């Protein structure tokens, strides 16, 4: 299967290129970048030196191919997707352009007017743990955001079991700097970022819409930037309609994810790695989930950790491709991470 990456010079694009070069069923033949056209891939991604002789090409030179990954900024995918689909390519979009079904949500969260409602309806939300059967028939796959992925996987079992009622869930998310992309800006300056613990979206974060769409829960999301390059940790505070003990939480989450290749349940009795931690997940496609019962406040705490560029973006996109193409789901995604790191 031949593949192309559009927007390959960014961090998500670079992670896609890395994973696709190591995928035994995929031949990566095109990587586009407007800013680095004509330059070798390793110029943007030095970890890929000697891994490929490909050079970036401008998007105007993109040729039809079997699967096209779009690692483009929000609003840049929507105009090019119809042409790619007409050319017969499977499209896996990592922007937010096709994640939401409701055009009104785009108007509210992204300040964009969407009239391509048929395509919005046609797109399959790219989370295999929730939509595996639909992904097998998809022609347009919308890969969720990094915070959304951790939060949805954490919240969904509680919501699906009807344990949330009408009560909102509070999600406190922390993310590393690579989640904000490669474009230079004052927030990325070392002087601003080093040592940071900044609430950059205490309310109203765009990923709220995705999480609510996929869980049915009412979501109160607060997002923070922390001192890390990769990683997302979403801490969910839920107040179920009936009290949950930890044994019940184990059973609930084991039923939901016990057979999933990339979701691990982590809530151990002792040791320093008792709960999910993004640090050891760098470069992997895992989402680790943990939980705890707090009888004092009748609260259930659920923790979701992942690499924002891995399961939170490129790794999940490759997992979606594997499902769609009928490859074993773990193909090309076997990296187990590093420890210590």
């Amino acid at each position, binding site marked *: 299967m031949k593949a192309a990456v559009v927007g390959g010079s960014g961090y998500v694009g670079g992670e896609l290129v890395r994973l696709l070069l190591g995928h035994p069923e995929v031949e990566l033949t095109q990587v586009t970048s407007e800013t680095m056209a004509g330059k070798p891939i390793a110029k943007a991604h030095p970890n890929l030196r000697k891994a490929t002789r490909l050079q970036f090409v401008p998007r105007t030179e993109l040729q039809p191919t079997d699967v096209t990954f779009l690692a483009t900024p929000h609003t840049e995918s929507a105009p090019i997707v119809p042409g790619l689909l007409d050319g017969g390519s499977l499209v896996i979009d990592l922007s937010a352009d096709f994640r939401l079904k409701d055009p009104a949500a785009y108007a509210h969260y992204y300040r964009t007017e969407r009239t391509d409602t048929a395509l919005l309806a046609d797109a399959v939300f790219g989370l295999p743990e929730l939509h595996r059967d639909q992904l097998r028939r998809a022609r347009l796959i919308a890969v969720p955001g990094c915070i959304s992925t951790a939060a949805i996987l954490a919240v969904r079992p509680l919501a699906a079991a009807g344990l949330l009622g009408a009560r909102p869930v509070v999600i406190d998310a922390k993310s590393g700097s690579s989640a904000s992309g490669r474009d230079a800006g004052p927030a990325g300056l070392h002087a601003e970022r080093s040592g940071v613990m900044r609430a950059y979206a205490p309310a109203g974060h765009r990923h709220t819409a995705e999480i609510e769409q996929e869980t049915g829960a009412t979501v109160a999301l607060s997002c923070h930037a922390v001192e890390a390059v990769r990683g997302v940790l979403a801490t969910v505070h839920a107040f179920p309609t009936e009290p949950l003990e930890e044994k019940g939480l184990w059973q609930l989450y084991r039923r939901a994810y016990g057979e999933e290749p990339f979701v691990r349940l982590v809530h151990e009795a*002792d040791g320093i790695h*008792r709960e999910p931690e993004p640090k050891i997940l760098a470069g992997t496609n895992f989402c680790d989930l943990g939980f705890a019962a707090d009888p004092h406040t009748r609260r259930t705490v659920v923790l979701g950790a992942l690499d924002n560029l891995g399961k939170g973006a490129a790794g999940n996109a490759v997992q979606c491709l594997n499902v769609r193409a009928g490859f074993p789901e773990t193909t090309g995604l076997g990296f187990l991470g590093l420890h210590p790191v």
Partner: protein
Amino acid sequence: MTECPTCAASVANDEKIVGEIFPCPDCGTELEVLTTAPFAVETAPKEAEDWGE
């Protein structure tokens, strides 16, 4: 097979003996074998401050 009293994971006997202490494969809780036929476990007592005196 029996069930971990903490997380309900399936726990196999695997030729364990009465009194043996082993960690649950899922949650890591230290379990103590009570009987082998039938296979039964309970959470192993943690060392208290006055133990060993």
